[in-house]
């Protein structure tokens, strides 16, 4: 049995877990739920020794433990199966199973290949998986690889297995096989922590649910005694308060229209409109395909089918350059890898999308460049000692403002904002909301992709919701509740 209590963790002064508790009984399947950023992964990384806790206590079978590395946690039988599987595709199934704990003759490292293959075969058939141990692991389906991961955990005597979104890439049948395997192991006394956004699955397989919100412990519920609605309310229930400044603006004609946009294997038949001066929220869970839709409209990804209309005119956008010619701007989700050049100064980053504006006949004009960057440092209240300061040394909020400045400089008529406040502190958030409102008032059509429901509800005039590559719902301002959006996002039953 594992007991975690009073767990606290902060990164650079940013508290991500505060006084969190979690217990895992022997032979129990325990779901861990919460919105993106609630602290689920961090909690499990502390349990498995990847992160160290700032405060709190972990007990395994009543004995206090201190894990300094995943190896320490493994000694107590705690194993994590990550969303990205740890299978080496070019090794055989048996080689994968015994990776790092190969059976050898003496210490010379000569492998007992046959013995390992025999053991692998026995283990796999116990788990109901009929594959030859010499099969190349990469040739197996993701579902089977998932079970190999469980088998790997068992070969290292795991008693507690943490599974992070195990079914994200599985077919329905594979999910059933996985569940059967999990249930059998549960009978043998192995415990599971099951992290997932999929409500039905959790209700089908888990015994209990612990809910986290904003790094806080909200509560624990026994499965048969709770409902979807109660869990959703626990996950999202926070007061909106005055966090979102009011916006009064005239919503004009349709500016952007997307019809049946599809990228094979990622999303399909996405259709929606954004009007001038309107903020359309795009909600959904991580991996629902929202960022990819944004990237496709911006020409960074190639659409396999579908059409895009601007002001009622059909346009072809094949690259970000085309998109920018049509006055589209895209503030990327991940500012560190896609939005900024971290080694560049604020000024160089802002200029990047505006090089034509700040140069004449190909020569960069220092005065124009400085005027542009100073205008936005002032307007967006970017806190910096100098425009020459490197982007990497700024706080998250200020980095985000630099990315915004870069795009405001292009005078966009359509702005796609992908998670505009991720990793941004509350003060800077409100300033970013003000910037969004001002843009809408100037008639910019805004598509705001966000995983934070309060933000979507607080800022958007209308919300469209995606689940697993499909548009599953649209909610008008008056009808917006977190529960309703969450239901569309998780594929739960429709709220009437």
């Amino acid at each position: 049995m594992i007991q975690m209590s009073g767990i606290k963790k902060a990164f650079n002064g940013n508290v991500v877990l505060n006084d969190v508790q979690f217990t895992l009984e022997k032979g129990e399947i325990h779901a861990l739920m919460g919105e993106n950023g609630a602290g689920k992964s961090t909690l499990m990384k502390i349990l498995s020794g990847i992160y160290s806790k700032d405060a709190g206590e972990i007990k395994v079978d009543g004995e206090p433990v201190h894990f300094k590395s995943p190896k320490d946690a493994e000694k107590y039988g705690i194993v994590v199966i990550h969303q990205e599987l740890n299978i080496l595709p070019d090794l055989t199934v048996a080689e994968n199973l015994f990776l790092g704990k190969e059976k050898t003759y003496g210490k010379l490292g000569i492998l007992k290949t046959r013995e390992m293959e025999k053991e692998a075969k026995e283990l796999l058939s116990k788990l109901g998986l009929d594959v030859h141990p010499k099969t190349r692991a990469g040739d197996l389906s993701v579902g089977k690889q998932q079970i190999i991961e469980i088998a790997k955990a068992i070969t290292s005597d795991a008693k507690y297995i943490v599974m992070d979104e195990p079914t994200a890439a599985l077919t329905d049948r594979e999910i059933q096989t996985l569940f059967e395997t999990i249930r059998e192991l549960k009978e043998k006394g192995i415990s599971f922590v099951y992290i997932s956004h999929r409500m039905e699955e959790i209700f089908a397989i888990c015994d209990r649910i612990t809910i986290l919100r904003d790094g806080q412990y909200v509560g624990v519920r026994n499965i048969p005694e709770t409902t979807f609605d109660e869990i959703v309310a626990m996950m999202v229930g926070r007061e909106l308060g005055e966090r979102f400044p009011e916006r009064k603006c005239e919503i004009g004609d349709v500016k952007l229209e997307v019809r049946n946009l599809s990228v094979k294997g990622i999303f399909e038949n996405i259709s929606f409109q954004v009007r001038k001066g309107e903020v359309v929220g795009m909600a959904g869970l991580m991996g629902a395909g929202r960022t990819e839709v944004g990237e496709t409209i911006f020409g960074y990804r190639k659409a396999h089918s579908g059409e895009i209309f601007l002001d009622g005119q059909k346009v072809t956008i094949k690259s970000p350059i085309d998109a920018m010619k049509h006055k589209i701007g895209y503030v990327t989700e991940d500012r560190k890898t896609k939005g900024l050049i971290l080694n560049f100064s604020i000024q160089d980053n802002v200029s990047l999308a505006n090089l034509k504006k700040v140069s004449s006949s190909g020569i960069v004009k220092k005065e124009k460049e400085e005027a542009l960057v100073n205008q936005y440092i002032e307007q967006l209240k970017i806190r910096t000692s100098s425009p020459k300061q490197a982007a990497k040394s700024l706080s998250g909020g200020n980095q985000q403002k630099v990315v915004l400045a870069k795009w405001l400089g292009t005078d966009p008529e359509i702005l796609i904002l992908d998670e505009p406040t991720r990793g941004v502190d509350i003060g800077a958030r409100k300033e970013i909301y003000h910037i969004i409102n001002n843009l809408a008032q100037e008639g910019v059509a805004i598509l705001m992709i966000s995983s934070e429901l309060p933000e979507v509800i607080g800022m958007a005039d209308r919300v469209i919701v995606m689940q697993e590559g499909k548009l599953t719902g649209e909610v008008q301002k008056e009808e917006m509740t977190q529960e309703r959006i969450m239901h569309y996002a998780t594929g739960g039953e429709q709220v009437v």
Partner: protein
Amino acid sequence: MSNSSKDWLSKLGPLIGLILLIIIVSVMNPSFLSITNIFNVLRQVSISAIIAFGMTFVILTGGIDLSVGSTLALTGAVAASLLAGGVDPFLSMGVALILGLILGAINGVIITKGKVAPFIATLATMTVYRGLTLVYTDGKPISGLGDHLSFQMFGKGYFFGIPIPVITTIIAFVILYFILHKTTYGRRVYAVGGNEEAAKLSGINADRIKIGVYAISGFMAALSALILTSRLNSAQPTAGQAYELDAIAAVVLGGTSLNGGKGWIFGTLVGALIIGVLNNGMNLIGVSSFWQQVVKGIVILLAVLLDRKKSE
């Protein structure tokens, strides 16, 4: 900004190294400082420095160009054969330079459109261009280039007492410095090397920028071929072998990161001078040519290790 002084120190590190090296060499053999010897060093350096300038552009985008030595041989052979055939010297030189530009651009197209890793692509073209040189020259040196004053001057002449290759190097440096630090193209080169994704998402045509840097590299290799051909008054089919290594070494010694996005062309000039002074100094001091290679390798390694330490 508190880290600006540290920035400067790391930028000036190579220059300090060069000055120390000059002091050591001149103490051990004062004749190093004679005008004749200094011009000798500079003239030798000019050939590798010009190639290294082009290489700087390539490395700033995170790429590498192994084909420069073979490009030098092929363009040199073409220029020599045209001259030997009585073609106007300016036209011959122009053809060689344009050929260099094209050979470089071919590298760029293979790398961007074919999505081949720069190391592999230019390793292949290095072999192809060398092979073409051997085919074109039939494996024999081309001589009898005539006595056109303009061509002879290019590698051997003096202008107000300064060797013309040195002047060419300085002009090339100034132009490339301007392109890299004052134009939108230069900014885009840094952006593509700093973060290609972010650059593309900011509306930069990364492919075009990359093809451009390889074209520049090819052009510079051809320029250096003209100096070499003029100096030797002939074109050797085996010319320029392993020149890519000296060029890469000069860029790295100058503090430009092989990961791209960080560095400057002044550093490359200093790096090329360090290698030149080291070669010349060791000759003057009487270090055997076998040991020279050992020392050169160790110096490059030390410089990179020092740089790593500083950035930690």
